[in-house]
């Protein structure tokens, strides 16, 4: 759709989308200058649930920060805690037993599927279809139950420890995970028929909300947003960490740059995550889940450490500047949606409000993670 042709001064009006608006999935606010249904200019206003996790990271000892990370992104919490433990392990030089790394990979991928499932439902709900959300939640509940049995909590996991895990997985978890894979594959087929093939759905997304590769680069967009713009970038492949090099999986990339491409990337990613889980369960080695000798007090040597991981939303980076004490000197969280959202202001100019909100949905926003 082409944008407005003539905008007379004084003929536009300001529309406050949010902070309480169904499409913003939380407390995001976008101040839109509107010309009828067209957006002339948009300005995102953040900070409604800013909690200053970075300062908390400086005030607390390293283990005490552990629960904070899962509060960043309540949908894919394990990916973020994974980044945190990897960063501290890198800084303090802690070895992780192989079994622990495999379990981490399996649980992170399960959490990624759960996160994408919820995004799928919420996204279709943004477009006005309510039912797929319920089907997605049904599958997601299965994962949450599974993770709850292992980690002890449903959303804000505090499962990983520096050097290993809080507790080991049991046979029941493995059985349930194995049973989950065919079940999820069947569900994916159902979603494909119910939503992806639907003509109304396609008409709403095809060619809508273009985000080019160059724009991604300038704004630092990562994750499915970049992959939907034809950029083959996945931290798991580009900068392998943990045991990901052991797994055989593909990175779905679509060149169309539109909302549908971002949708397809996530749907394909779920399948790839299932493959990783499958292989992880097959390869799962025996052994301890915590290293034999672990420093009692974690005091990384002075320095500046960076660790990036691929979460459900993109490349999550964590920078730890240590001064050799038990508290971090600087604790920086680079959240993927922050960068992904920053391109929204530019990308939505000239779009109709319903297309812009569909594009916003395709960015997969989790507001606590933007605001931190």
């Amino acid at each position, binding site marked *: 759709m082409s944008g407005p042709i003539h905008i007379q001064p004084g003929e536009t009006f300001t529309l406050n989308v949010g902070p309480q608006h169904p499409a913003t999935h939380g407390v995001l606010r976008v101040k839109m200058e509107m010309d009828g249904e067209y957006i002339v200019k948009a300005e995102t206003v953040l900070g409604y649930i800013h909690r200053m996790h970075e300062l908390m990271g400086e005030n*607390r000892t390293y283990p005490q920060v552990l629960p904070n990370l899962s509060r960043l992104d309540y949908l894919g919490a394990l990916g973020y805690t994974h980044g945190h433990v990897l960063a501290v392990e890198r800084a303090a030089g802690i070895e992780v037993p192989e079994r622990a790394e495999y379990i981490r990979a399996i649980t992170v991928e399960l959490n990624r599927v759960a996160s994408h499932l919820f995004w799928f439902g919420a996204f279709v709900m943004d477009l006005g279809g309510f039912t797929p959300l319920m089907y997605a939640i049904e599958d997601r509940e299965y994962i949450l139950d599974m993770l709850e049995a292992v980690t*002890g909590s449903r959303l804000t996991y*505090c499962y990983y420890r520096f050097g290993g895990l*809080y507790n080991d997985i049991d046979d029941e978890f493995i059985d349930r995970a194995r049973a989950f894979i065919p079940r999820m594959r069947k569900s994916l087929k159902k979603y494909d*028929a119910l939503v992806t*093939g639907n*003509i109304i759905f396609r008409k709403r997304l095809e060619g809508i909300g273009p985000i080019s590769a160059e724009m991604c680069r300038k704004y630092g967009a990562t994750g499915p947003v970049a992959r939907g713009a034809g950029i083959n970038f996945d931290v798991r492949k580009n900068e392998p960490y943990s045991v990901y090099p052991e797994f055989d999986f593909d990175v779905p990339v679509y060149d169309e740059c539109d909302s549908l491409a971002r949708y397809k990337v996530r749907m394909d990613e779920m399948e790839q995550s299932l493959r990783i889980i499958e292989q992880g369960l097959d390869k799962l080695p025996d052994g301890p889940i915590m290293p034999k000798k672990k420093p009692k007090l974690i005091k990384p040597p002075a320095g500046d450490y960076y660790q990036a991981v691929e979460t459900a939303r993109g490349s999550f980076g964590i920078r730890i500047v240590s001064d050799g004490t038990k508290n971090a000197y600087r604790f920086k969280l680079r959240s993927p949606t922050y960068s992904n959202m920053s391109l929204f202001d530019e990308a939505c100019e000239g779009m109709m409000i319903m297309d812009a909100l569909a594009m916003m949905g395709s960015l997969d926003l989790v507001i606590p993670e933007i605001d931190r």
Partner: protein
Amino acid sequence: MGAYFSEIFRGLQSLATGLGITFKEFFKPVVTVPYPYETIKMSDRFRGHIELVENEEGKPKCVACGMCQRACPSGCISLASKSVEYEVEVKGEMKTKKKKVLTKYNLNFTTCSLCGQCVESCNFGAITFSKEYNLASSRKEDFHFDLLNRLKERNS
């Protein structure tokens, strides 16, 4: 012209597929739990708020070392203890020894983030997770738990 009609046809077909799926789901049984009437059992590892563990005598196992208090990221545990003298027989002799006894163990659940650092830091296995999740109240004070009292109530 052909493309025009084939698009309409394929569109209708995709709509029919969608309708077919929801129609099938219509006859499947419901998957939800009617919550207040039925509840599900929490898993063994479920992390609720913490609870004191008792020893064989029904007294708290806690030795009031304060490790949990220090480990807690949000500072929601506060405990107090007093020294109590007691006599033990060592090699046939009666000796008085001092022991710390827990007099207060308060948990401010409003700031607890359920991370489980306290339970992990405890070297005596004196605290554990409860399985309670139906906590709801409109008063903040209802979540300032006196765990010693709760232990007593459990025993009585």
